[in-house]
């Protein structure tokens, strides 16, 4: 469904992607693991058209999307949930959702505000609250809900557990599990291996802008050596 081939990109001076290749199949949850600054966010931003790749290609649903503007990519059904949430703090919950609203598309789970509120019950209780007066966990829920309003067939989820208390992270894992069972394809970036293990089918490990490992979560769990080399050092 999402095929990234030989992607190279430059972002500022320090973060450079070299030869990133990955594949996400329909309905899969795939984790992109790596430490801070390894290139996870840059990979996502490049796929999303927010950073222009210097070479390589991104295919989504059989179409080339690399080089297109981010709004075009979003309109093709690829949703993006940024790492730092980027809630519109002056807008209410309902208005935040409105910004994300797009026409429904075939072959993707359709969402209504009410359906989203059943997945994110907290949000239903604060429809008219400005985004700036929500807690970190609530904002994280809202940023995901906002992206779902575009009825994406796949989403890029950048470090959803970042900065959240352990107890909220557990909730988040359940919610993402629920989205997976709706048939949503997810590419998830994480530093938290425990969190990824709860959700993902397969994982890639990125380090210094290169993919260093690819395998199922079970393989990764068994591979002490890889974990030691890329995730803990």
């Amino acid at each position, binding site marked *: 469904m999402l095929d990234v081939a030989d992607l190279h990109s430059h972002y500022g001076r320090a973060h450079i992607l070299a030869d990133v290749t990955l594949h996400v199949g329909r309905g899969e949850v795939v984790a992109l693991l790596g430490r801070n600054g390894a290139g996870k966010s840059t990979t996502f931003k490049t796929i999303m058209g927010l950073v222009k790749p210097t070479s390589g290609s991104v295919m989504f649903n059989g179409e080339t999307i690399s080089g297109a503007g981010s709004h075009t990519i979003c309109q093709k059904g690829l949703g993006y949930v940024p790492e730092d949430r980027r809630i519109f703090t002056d807008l209410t919950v309902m208005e935040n959702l409105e910004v994300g609203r797009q026409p429904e598309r075939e072959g993707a789970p359709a969402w209504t505000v009410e359906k989203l509120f059943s997945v994110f019950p907290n949000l239903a209780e604060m429809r008219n609250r400005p985004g*700036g007066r929500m807690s970190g966990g609530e904002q994280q829920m809202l940023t995901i809900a906002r992206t779902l309003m575009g009825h994406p067939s796949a989403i890029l989820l950048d470090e959803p557990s970042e*900065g959240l208390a352990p107890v909220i992270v557990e909730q988040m894992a359940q919610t993402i599990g629920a989205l997976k069972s709706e048939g949503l394809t997810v590419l998830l970036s994480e530093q938290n291996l*425990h969190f990824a293990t709860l959700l993902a089918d397969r994982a890639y490990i990125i380090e210094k802008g290169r993919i260093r490992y690819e395998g199922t979560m079970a393989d990764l769990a068994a591979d002490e050596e890889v974990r030691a080399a890329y995730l803990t050092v």
Partner: protein
Amino acid sequence: MTNVSNPVLAVRGLSKSFGGVHAVADVNFFLDAGELLALIGPNGAGKTTCFNMLNGQLPPDAGSVKLQGRELVGMTPRQVWRLGVGRTFQITATFASMTVRENVQMALISHHKRIRALWRRTGDHYADEALALLDRVGMAEQAERACGVLAYGDLKRVELAVALANEPQLLLMDEPTAGMAPQERIDLMALTAGIVRERSISVLFTEHDMDVVFAHSDRVMVLNRGELVAEGSPAAVRADPLVQEIYLGAGSTFGSDEQPAATTTADAAAGGTHA
């Protein structure tokens, strides 16, 4: 350890409300010389508000903050700094257009009240002292590089050297390992712990990474909705059922003792929602 006759920092009855909501309510604690005290709690529990009151950024509604017997309430952050209270930030704040050495020199120049010198080059002020501090945090080799091109972990070390420039008695560290890789965190905290012990500096730090908290703090305090709900040794706090309920959860998303590998990432950019 809690009950010392002559604490470095003594906080009594510290309170602050915003629009009728108690952000911090009647917080009391002591901090001993050379002690590392961790302050943990959910987002919005009042940790940042607490820090801001300790260093003078925010006036408390009530309560007192005493540094070696001297009242800090009512002082500006700069006055508090001059008395020997350093602060580090969640997100690194360095002078990107200066070299590592110049960053430390700026802190030394300010410490010696020379910021309005008009003639002699900045690079000639306190160069040896700056290098000595950088050497202590392992950054001497990169002294001439621009801060703007450093790796994140190295910036954190530079900040530590900067914080040491005014010979502080107390360091307030706001999520010192935020945004770092797991091993870097452990290294940085080990370095910090070493330095504070040899110089007998006290440290109060907030942290989201429970592995760092349980590995490096002498004591842990838990803040929830502005109130201190637990305080004690790391092991005792960890076993506290109330703390598990409000903050730690079932423990499935951070490392257990046997496996301190990957961990919950810290609050690098939690959005502006701290109460």
